[in-house]
């Protein structure tokens, strides 16, 4: 029984790690200027071990090390993070249709980021202005949603979803107002691009913070995987299993909101990953969070690397927003999921 599933999960994890490594190399190699896989591996080896690069290769090495690699790694981090947050939020609000954006945090972040794009706020922070503004307004949105959803009995799933959704509409209205008030079309375009998610212009600077937050958040959720199972059974049942539901949901809210805020700050609001990946993973390994939370980040990381590759490759030299690609993949995938027999989507 459970042993069978474990036996099935370990090879899957190994496979996904191999796929992820291959995806990183492919993600670096592919682009408007394609670089042979062998050279990519050689460059990466040289960079890590301190080897020498021939002078003629310096240009390609710059593309690999300064432009592509941080971008590919950030895609992996964001994909992993969104998938994990999606899993946690679906369990926290006990709703199979929830995603990292259901709490209104990303919409809140958008207000800040778009204000930077259109009004030129935080100009002194240079290229980090958008991320900083997005994170700060995500924090503000988190606080607002928390205070509005809170009751004497703690955060209840339905109130969280309703409050988050209502707040999201408010934030979206503000964002659209900012876009329409934009002084010139270029600012509106920059705002739109950010709203749909993009990893263009990523440097090494954003990576450590995002990676650390995703790693710590995922570790926290893994430590609580068993309790997430209990929480999925309903609040009263979870209580009888020894879980302090009010405290657990409060902590989950803080962890998922923090992770979402950071992820949205570095990449914009990439849709569908946090909704779709958890379900795809559950279809394969079942609903036990001890397996889902191991497999989901690996699958999500590879997924977003390829989405970003597509964003670069479909219409060069123009880049497409990530949200366009994830929606193009996500919608049919989702409909297929819903119609598939044998996978019970949500509760009864």
């Amino acid at each position: 029984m459970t042993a069978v599933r474990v036996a099935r999960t370990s090879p899957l994890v190994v496979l996904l790690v191999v796929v992820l490594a291959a995806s990183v190399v492919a993600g670096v190699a592919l682009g408007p200027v394609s670089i042979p896989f062998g050279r990519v591996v050689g460059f990466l080896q040289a960079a890590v071990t301190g080897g020498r690069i021939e002078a003629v290769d310096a240009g390609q090495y710059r593309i690999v090390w300064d432009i592509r690699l941080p971008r590919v790694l950030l895609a992996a981090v964001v994909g992993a993070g969104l998938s994990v947050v999606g899993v946690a939020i679906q369990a926290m609000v006990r709703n199979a249709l929830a995603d990292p954006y259901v709490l209104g945090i990303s919409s809140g972040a958008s207000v800040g980021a778009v204000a930077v794009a259109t009004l030129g706020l935080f100009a002194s922070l240079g290229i980090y202005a958008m991320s900083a503004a997005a994170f700060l307004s995500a924090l503000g949105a988190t606080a607002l949603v928390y205070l509005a959803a809170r009751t004497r009995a703690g955060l209840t799933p339905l109130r969280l979803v309703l409050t988050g959704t209502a707040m999201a509409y408010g934030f979206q209205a503000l964002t659209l107002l900012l876009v329409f008030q934009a002084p010139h079309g270029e600012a509106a375009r920059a705002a739109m691009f950010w709203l749909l998610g993009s990893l263009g212009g990523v440097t090494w600077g954003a990576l450590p913070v995002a990676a650390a937050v995703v790693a710590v958040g995922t570790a926290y959720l893994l430590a609580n995987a068993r309790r997430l199972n209990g929480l999925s059974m309903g609040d009263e049942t979870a209580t009888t299993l020894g879980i302090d539901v009010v405290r657990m949901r409060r902590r989950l809210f803080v962890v998922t909101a923090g992770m979402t805020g950071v992820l949205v700050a570095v990449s914009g609001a990439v849709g569908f990953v946090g909704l779709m990946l958890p379900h795809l993973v559950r279809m394969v390994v079942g609903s036990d969070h001890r397996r889902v939370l191991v497999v989901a980040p690996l699958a999500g990381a590879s997924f977003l690397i390829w989405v970003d590759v597509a964003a670069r490759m479909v219409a060069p030299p123009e880049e497409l927003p990530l949200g366009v690609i994830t929606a193009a993949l996500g919608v049919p995938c989702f409909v297929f999921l819903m119609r598939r027999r044998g996978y019970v989507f949500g509760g009864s």
Partner: protein
Amino acid sequence: MDLELDSISVDGIVDGISLSAGTGEVVGVVGPNGSGKSTTLRCVYRALKPSGGAVLLDGRDLLSLPLKESARRLAALTQDSHVEFDFTVAEVVAMGRLPHKGAFDRDTERDHDLVTDALRRVDAGHLAERSFLTLSGGERQRVLIARALVQEPDVLVLDEPTNHLDIRHQLDVLALVRGLGLTVLMVLHDLNLAAAYCDRVHVLDGGRVVAGGKPADVLTPDLVQAVFGVRAHLVQHPVSGVPQLLFEHPEVSP
């Protein structure tokens, strides 16, 4: 292990409920809708904090224990059976090990054995790999009892375990509960089932205990008339001999 509720109160709902269940005893709680049965039970399984009173387990205050510790002594089947995700039966039953496990503890051989044994005890071994969401009402209830068993509790609390079950499954579930050898406190709607399967019953009305004792002494036509406003006739079960009630709708009565 014996369970004792000592004047449990929840503002505006129940007022000074005192009742007990001795070691290995099956005790029923009956009463009209809104009489405070479920509220009382929720206080026992700690989904609700009473505004006054105490729940004692072998004389020790249950409500002051950490939740995890009380969950190792007392298991419950609640009314909220909404499950959002597609867990297998074995996974649902394994959740009963939660109060015995730390953050990174793995499942041991013993955990697996407990799950297998519990499923066999409730006659649901063949369901282990089925999706919990696809089970019938009776199967679900048996699986949830199995989950309670792997919790290795001394006391089992059940809120209307026969709800939505057909008569065969009602009898099956109650016979199963009786055969567990645990101290049991359960809310039941059906007075005749309470009379047949409980060692003692407590009757709640308007948030207070109005009667308690052996079913034969408590579930009388007079009490039914006073508490439910329904005329009842007492008969003896022709085979088991337990007292059973036949009801008469007040308006139909001549």
